[in-house]
């Protein structure tokens, strides 16, 4: 299953982003091949609602689960419609690598 983590930059030690739509990069972790792909947020710099651009990009990458500090209302509607699992991590002091470790632990 592929998991997209909203992050503040492209490094694996970066913290997760408070807002799903406004983050700068997504780290897409594949728990079958244990690889991480980093993509830029396609909607960065666009003003207003950008949920549809982000969700389309993530669907194209076959992502089934997303993690962020918070989700906007419109993006929640879209994610819900596309049956993508949302995880809200209220403590945004956790780094992407720590989260990947937690997701990994599950398979062991």
């Amino acid at each position: 299953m592929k998991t997209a983590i909203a992050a503040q930059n492209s490094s694996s030690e970066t913290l997760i982003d408070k807002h799903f739509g406004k983050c700068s990069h997504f780290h897409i972790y594949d728990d079958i091949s244990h690889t991480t792909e980093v993509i830029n947020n396609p909607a960065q710099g666009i003003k207003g609602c950008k949920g549809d651009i982000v969700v389309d990009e993530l669907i194209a990458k076959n992502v089934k689960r997303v993690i962020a500090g918070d989700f906007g209302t419109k993006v929640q509607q879209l994610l819900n419609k596309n049956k993508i699992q949302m995880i809200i991590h209220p403590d945004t002091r956790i780094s992407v690598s720590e989260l990947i470790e937690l997701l990994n632990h599950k398979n062991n």
Partner: protein
Amino acid sequence: MSPRPKNNRTVFDPPKFKGYKPFGYYAGENEPVFLLFEEYSALKLCDYELMTQSQASQVMNISRPTFTRLYESARRKIALALAEARPIEVEKGRAYFSNDWYNCRACNIFFTAPEMELSSIRCPLCQSKNLEEITTN
């Protein structure tokens, strides 16, 4: 004649807290103010996501005048809590969640579980089964 029943207000995500407490107030603890889930949601939509009241009312599936009353009630309750140094507690009102949310008591995250059977739901991060289901129905 009985009054007309209230419609359910659609709420997207649950508040990430159970309440707020004032600090540095020496007169002891006051009676809490109960803020409803839908009032919190109205305030978030208008003042955090910066929607207009008419857009926010469509999101919550209520009429614009109902939304305005709800929003005003939220503002008044928060002003009351601040002015009288009273704690705020969130309470379920007539909120209807568009998704079923689960709160993991072990690692304090919120998550949805689309297309999963109730018995097989576990916390995606710590695998704990110590979950609280956040629904009002």
